[in-house]
């Protein structure tokens, strides 16, 4: 069982989290022409990096999505950041 740190709730068990996707993907503007290839890339292809990765996870108990940087080999969590913009 891994432990991740939700930026809002702190250190919690892995079972409270879901993986949502690799960070950095942008949904193509579907009101414009989107090629099959572009759409397939968006839908199905990921980098699946060996080593440090940047991913989006959700803490299911507070429902907040956040960025987690972690090492996919050592399972070490390098850091977590809220996706929210600052509302100072």
């Amino acid at each position: 069982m891994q432990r991740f740190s939700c930026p809002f709730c702190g250190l919690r068990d892995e079972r409270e989290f879901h993986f949502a996707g690799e960070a950095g993907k942008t949904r193509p503007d579907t009101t414009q022409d989107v090629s099959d290839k572009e759409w397939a890339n968006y839908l199905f292809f990921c980098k699946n990096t060996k080593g440090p990765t940047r991913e989006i996870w959700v803490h299911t108990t507070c429902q907040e999505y956040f960025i987690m940087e972690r090492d996919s080999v050592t399972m070490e969590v390098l850091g977590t950041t809220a996706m929210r913009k600052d509302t100072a």
Partner: protein
Amino acid sequence: MTGHRIGTRGLLDRSKTLSFRFDGKTYQGFQGDTVASALLASGVRIFGRSFKYHRPRGVWGAWFDDPNAIVDIKHGGVHYPNCQATMTQLVDGMEVRSVNAWPTAQKDLKGILDLAQRFMPAGFYYKMFMWPDWHLFEPMIRKMAGIGTLSADVQDDFEAAILHEHCETLVIGGGPAGLTAARAAAKAGKSVLLIDDHPDFGGSSYRYPNDAAEGPSYWVAEQLSAIEDAGGRVLSSTTAIGVYDHQAVSIVTDRGLGTAPVVRKLRPDNVIVATGAVDRPVTFSNNDRPGVMSLDAGAEFLARFGVLVGQQIAILSNRPDAHDVAAQLENAGAKVDLLDPKSDPAKAIGYRNLKGVRVAGHTYPCDTILASAGLTPLVHLWRHAGGKLDWDEGRQTFVPSTGPDWMRVIGGANGTYERSAVEEEARSAALNTSRPERHVYSISPLLPNTKNTEGRQWIDFQHDVTLKDVALAHRENMVSVEHLKRYTTLGMAGDQGKTSNIAGLAAMADLKGQRIPEVGTTTFRPPFVPVPLEAYRGASRDTQVAPLKRLTLEPEHRALGAALGEYGGWLRPAWYGGDDEQSAVASECKIARDAAAIMDGSALGTIEVIGPDARAFVNFVYYNTMSNLKPGRIRYGFMLTESGLVFDDGVIACVDETRFIISCSSSHADAVMAHLENWRQDSFDPDRVHIHDTTQNWSTVTIAGPKARAIVDALGVLDTLDDFAHMTLRFGAFEDVPARVARVSFTGDSSFEVSVPNSAAVRLWQRAIAAGKPHGAGPVGAEALVVLRAEKGYIIVGKDTEGETMPHDLGFGAPRLRKSAAFVGDRSLHTENANREDRKQFVGLSVEDGEPKLPIGAHIVTVQNGERRSLGYVTSSHDSPTLERPIALALVSGGLGAMGQPVEIYHMGKTRRATITPSCAFDTEGARIDA
């Protein structure tokens, strides 16, 4: 008598005699015995038959490293299959049976298989049983192979407790290394937990009773009390089964036969692994004969149980301390030959009874062979934690190298056997000082000789894998060790290759002309020893995993005699009154069509979308256009996944520009909520749109049928029901609480969903039932509703749709072609696949007059080139009480373009005929909905 009890040695309570039966015969043992030690003490040698060839097998190891002696046990009316005789504590009155043996291990009728062995080499199953069909052979093989049998005498309430604990230093293994480390760590102020899988701490301490003046038991007791005095804790009969991510360790405490284990999960700051080492078998001809045991087993049975395993013992080992064991055995009264094992394989002589061993041309008479090709450190936990291994040429085995800094491996597990070196390592690990150099230790190699595969030289006892099998795998180009493992099944038995792996690797390396480290090892995975599944599950099952959702109106339903059932996580009324489901459902359908159904609709998911961007949000997450949904109006729609697949269906009501109410399938509310949350945070400003699941705040009473309007009128929720059209929403009050009424229909009849806060639910329900009675209306459960829906061809997502269904397959194609705004899944609806004409589409099926209903899952088939091919299948099928004929819904390739066409239905070898129809079978004009 070969094995027998001697003197007073051992950790037994000899004042307590226990009686038990093995294969029908009565034996005696002492409190503290294992099944294996008690049988060995009684002279029993054959414990069972081997898995594949039914060779007679005895005991190899004295503890978890024994691959052979697996037995079935009956005790207290409960049957325990797959017990290791060497690890099972003897209990008075237990009934023990050998496995793979019929009628008994001594006399096995299937032993004839052994003679046929040359026809059963590695990969035999794969090769022989592929044609024509493995399933023809499977029942026979399953019956003949397999270890133990399952019985119906399942024990109730066998539930493992899972506890979460903490300590600073966890010491795994309570032998000389672990005891020393735990004592030093506790003394240094650490909170220490020391565990050992034996009932008694001490590990290998007992084997050499002369190395401490007061004896090993005294030394062990002294260490334990020092640990506890310093605040440390100790747990015996406790095994660390695995080390998991982020420093988690699971330890399992065995509480004896019939009592579920206790599992503890910890994340210690430091873990000290002192798990010791086990003997590797020597690969020689007939090395699986009963009476061939590990060197340490000979020493352990003597030390712990006072059992001398033989009278005339040949020791075949390269271990430098073999003479210490020999001296112990001689002291106890055995005659011992310490033989020099040669590279030319030895041969055991004798079938059921060992008669001698042939080494380098000489035959030595013996009744027991103690063999060891060296010690294999138990590095499993180190590997679980990500630690690396190095091949150690001197030790002829893998030893820990680099790894996590929070784990230290000491003693035998680190390849360190010399007592003072062990203690130095233990103290260094306890105080976390720099790791001492590994001391020099060297044995002469004693590896399988692949140049001489004569006779039958066993590598894996439990799975009956021989040196020849490894050679065959190599000839057939199984080049990687992972291939070797799967092809021969070496190391895949319950013991996971604890004793067999090194010999298997060595043989493979030799055949490939490589060094052993070049061949590499297979992966070490938890659990370290087999544990009951309950150890993983704990109390996490049924409602402990997914708590049942309960309706506010449940007592009302019970009062009306409802049969309650689980639907999508909710406990809901299935039907009312009586045990006869069929007639209850039929009469409820009739009530619904003739008068009105009064239903508890509270389980339907209700999610509110609120905020200035709410409209844009719902327009994006729905397939259907929601940008023009006016306040007070309701629209039916689909949510899709980004792959264009139907994710959920339901209605959405617009309250005003900034507030929408989504209804989703009751079983799907959590998933829909997560789906919406995802898009809200991904593609919208989360401060401008909020979503909120209000399912459990409101109760809904749905009244549907020709008399619905009159009944709802009597509730007085709205001043008037005039001009209250289908698919609109109004707000009112029920007595003192706010209420809303939605005109939405799941039955095809005029329908009103009246929602109130839970506090008023009971009053509303009782008023509706009372108001309905004069009209002939009454309560209707979930089963009848399913039939009423199906009559109208209304889909149930997940039942009438599958993992490829897109909305246009259901006849809802317009938004795909016309909606201009972006929405989830839009682009996926225009791929080559989405445009195919032979997509499975949603249709109805009718059968000929007088025919029974179609089975759900039956295939719609076509015959092409003499071969039957499926075009789809039946998804829903009912006897419609309304139409007085069977109805069915189906997904059929190209079905929407095949209305009126006859089709062939195939199910379980029978063919029937049906006709493709529109999905709606009742009131096809839709006249009743606004009645």
